[in-house]
């Protein structure tokens, strides 16, 4: 942390000018320290519509806000996601298909323009996010149900949907929902020019010149080197604690650790578990870990001639000792979700769902009853695509061998290769993009998912697909939860995948920095989650 220093001056000069300087708010800004964060890789761009990868969101989370914000630091008492006002002060359903948002007044964009309904219209325009030919096609995954976004007045916006969406608040607080400011974006709009054409120009111009309303504004980008942000003192959530934040690209773990200890960096990200104990030996560094809202899973091709036997798939799942994996690989710092769900699902969380058990005796019994005759099963993975996926595969291979399952690890270099004909078992990850079944299991495994429709790796049972269709149509919370419980049971019975664990991300943080990591890769440097005390 590099604090600004002041030169020694004669006492009279100090006394004579001290009061005047103290009264100047600029002086306060000067005294704030600069923060340096060592990251494994810089963002691919700072356009919140273009990329939602971990390397991207950790940086642009400081530049942009969402209408509704998820307060990761303070989840609800039951562990559910806590939604709080962001750029919108309040929101409500006015009819089953119209959702009104009252916008916060007095918010300023980084270009100095006031934030209002026009910025929301620019962000959620059909041409940009949710129409049939949206410029950012991923927007349709979240907002494909929208039919209209209109301005009722300067600070009121109405969203109309085709079908009532009980989790629209969650969607408006998740990926793809970061609000851009309309003036720099619409400056590229030309009458009579196709929206894809002018939006392409706008996106190109703004991907490294983003304009949002967040606590830090963009200053500079040097490829492979750094992204620099500066405190935006007109931020509606209060004055940011650091004068600047520099995200410096340091791909080597050893160099991130060394730089942190040597004082070159204040925070280092993506520190794997084998570095944690070593870092804890330094008094001026603390290690913060957080299990992510992402699960490492093993997918089974239910349409494969060998794996189509459900008993074999259950035996494979039952013979994996997940606690042993977690203790060995993740130092016991994470958990295996009890089913394809998380506590952050809140009212939808099925607490008593059993999930994926470890029972080698039952695995052997099921194996004996199955049609499996000891054939070699291919276990495909892209080496090191996920942290410790190779080590986990080698351990699981031995666990399977112990119950009589013969697996061969096949290294491939892309998911195209992973899923090409002959796929039997492979490593994958599932992200809970919205804390609800519709943001996770339905998207990745439901009747319209690529798994069922395109890749044809999951031949779902009618029980699962019926429950999925019911869940999509249902809006009553209690009925949704009951349907979800049924869906989970059917999913676990179908066994198209088994859960391993949620990976953990580790941060090294210098003493004196009050900052809490979240269960998603967002790095939140808002005043509510970031302050600087004494070193």
């Amino acid at each position: 942390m590099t604090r600004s220093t002041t030169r020694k001056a004669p006492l009279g000069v100090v006394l004579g000018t001290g009061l005047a300087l103290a009264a100047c708010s600029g002086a306060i800004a000067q005294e704030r320290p600069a923060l340096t964060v060592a990251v494994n890789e810089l963002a691919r761009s700072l356009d919140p519509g273009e990329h939602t990868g971990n390397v991207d969101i950790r940086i642009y989370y400081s530049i942009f806000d969402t209408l509704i914000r998820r307060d990761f630091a303070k989840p609800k008492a039951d562990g559910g996601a806590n939604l709080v006002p962001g750029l919108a002060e309040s929101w409500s359903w006015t009819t089953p298909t119209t959702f009104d948002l009252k916008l916060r007044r007095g918010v300023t964009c980084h270009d100095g323009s006031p934030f209002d309904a026009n910025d929301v219209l620019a962000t959620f325009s059909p041409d940009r996010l949710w129409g049939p030919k949206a410029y950012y096609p991923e927007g349709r995954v979240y907002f494909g149900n929208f039919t209209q976004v209109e301005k009722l007045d300067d600070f009121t916006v109405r969203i109309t949907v085709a079908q009532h969406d009980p989790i629209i608040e969650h969607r408006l607080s998740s990926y793809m929902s970061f609000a851009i400011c309309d003036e720099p974006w619409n400056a590229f709009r030309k009458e009579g020019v196709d929206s894809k054409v002018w939006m392409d120009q706008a996106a190109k111009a703004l991907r490294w010149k983003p304009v949002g309303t967040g606590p830090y504004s963009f200053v500079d980008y040097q490829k492979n080197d750094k992204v620099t942000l500066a405190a935006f003192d007109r931020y509606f959530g209060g004055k940011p604690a650091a004068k600047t934040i520099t995200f410096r690209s340091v791909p080597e773990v050893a160099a991130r650790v060394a730089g942190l200890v040597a004082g070159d960096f204040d925070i280092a990200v993506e520190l794997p578990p084998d570095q944690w104990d070593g870092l804890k030996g330094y008094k001026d560094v603390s290690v913060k870990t957080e299990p992510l809202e992402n699960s490492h899973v093993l997918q089974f091709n239910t349409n494969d001639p060998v794996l189509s036997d459900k008993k074999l798939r259950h035996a494979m799942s039952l013979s994996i000792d997940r606690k042993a994996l977690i203790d060995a690989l993740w130092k016991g710092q994470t958990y295996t979700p009890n089913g394809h769900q998380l506590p952050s699902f809140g009212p939808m969380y099925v607490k008593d769902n059993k999930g994926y058990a470890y029972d080698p005796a039952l695995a052997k019994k099921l194996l004996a009853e199955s049609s499996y005759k000891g054939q070699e099963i291919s276990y495909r993975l892209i080496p090191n695509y996920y942290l410790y996926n190779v080590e986990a595969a080698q351990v699981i291979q031995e666990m399977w061998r112990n119950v009589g399952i013969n697996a061969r690890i096949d290294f491939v270099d892309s998911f195209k290769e992973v899923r090409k004909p002959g796929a039997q078992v492979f490593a994958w990850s599932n992200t809970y993009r919205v804390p609800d079944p519709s943001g996770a299991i339905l998207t990745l495994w439901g009747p319209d998912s690529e798994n069922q429709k395109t890749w044809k790796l999951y031949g779902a049972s009618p029980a699962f697909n019926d429950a999925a269709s019911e869940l999509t149509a249902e809006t009553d919370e209690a009925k949704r939860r009951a349907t979800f419980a049924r869906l989970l049971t059917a999913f676990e019975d179908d066994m198209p995948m088994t859960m391993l664990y949620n990976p953990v991300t580790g941060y090294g943080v210098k003493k004196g920095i009050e900052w809490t990591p979240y269960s998603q890769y967002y790095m939140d440097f808002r005043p509510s989650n970031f302050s600087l005390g004494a070193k």
Partner: protein
Amino acid sequence: MPGRLFLTKLARGLLTVWLIVTLTFVALNLSGDPIEALVGDQAPAEVIAHYREKFGLDRPLWQQYVSYVSGIAQGDFGLSLSDQRPAIELIAAALPRTLRLGLTAFVLGLLLGVGLGIVAALNRNRAIDRFVMSFAVLGFSLPNFFLGILLILLFSLHWRLLPSSGDQTIWHLILPAVTLGTHFAGTFARFTRSAMLEVLSKQYVVAARAKGVPRPRRVLWHALPNAAIPIITIIGLKLGDLVAGSIIVETVFAVPGVGRLLVNAVTSRDFALVQAILIMTSITMVLANLAVDAIYALIDPRMRAARSES
């Protein structure tokens, strides 16, 4: 070098560059889908199709190749897939940093390597010779990533004397330059020693000694210029290797140069950028070889004579 010979070598160089362009294009396209690296492991097919169309990757491979090669012929190396900026612009921004690191390391390696090689040759089979050669073998064979991390652990982590990453100040240059320079020094020392030993046993050096020529003059004036051909050959090869050699060192020390750019481009399968860097590297190699040939002719009259006879 006579004009015809130069033109022949130039044509060979151009053929080499074309082969590299083609092989790189084929190898990268066989290695996987760049869009997958861009959009992640859970992207819907609709999103993947959108980006494939946007970057022209939905066209047949031969069409992509033709448009790429014709682009290069017009000086257009294409847009970086991940950055959306011209590949050549990104390389131009990173190159000065690579050259600063590479040339510093090169000069360090040259001075240290040639100096130590001469000392070792003059003290053949003595303790100092064995010591220098041990250093040379170690410097040559120690992987850069290992030496780099070792230096970080010692000088940044343990003694906290030098910064471990970046290239903001001259202090940031020391550890990566020493890492890369040690490798160069090891190579140069070995070649200088063997070249000097060969020359020192020649009759004209013995004659100079018999005539009472002082040792420094004998070594620097009579022996070293005659030992220069193999040394210049290896210098030429290593000079062309500056960018390639910096790949590991730039990654370990987080220097945002061309080496890092290449590593990132390969990881993200950024075709245009990988191709542009490889073409640039191959051109550097070809030019370095041409320069070495030209220098041979300048410093060794026998070669001029032999070539003009042939």
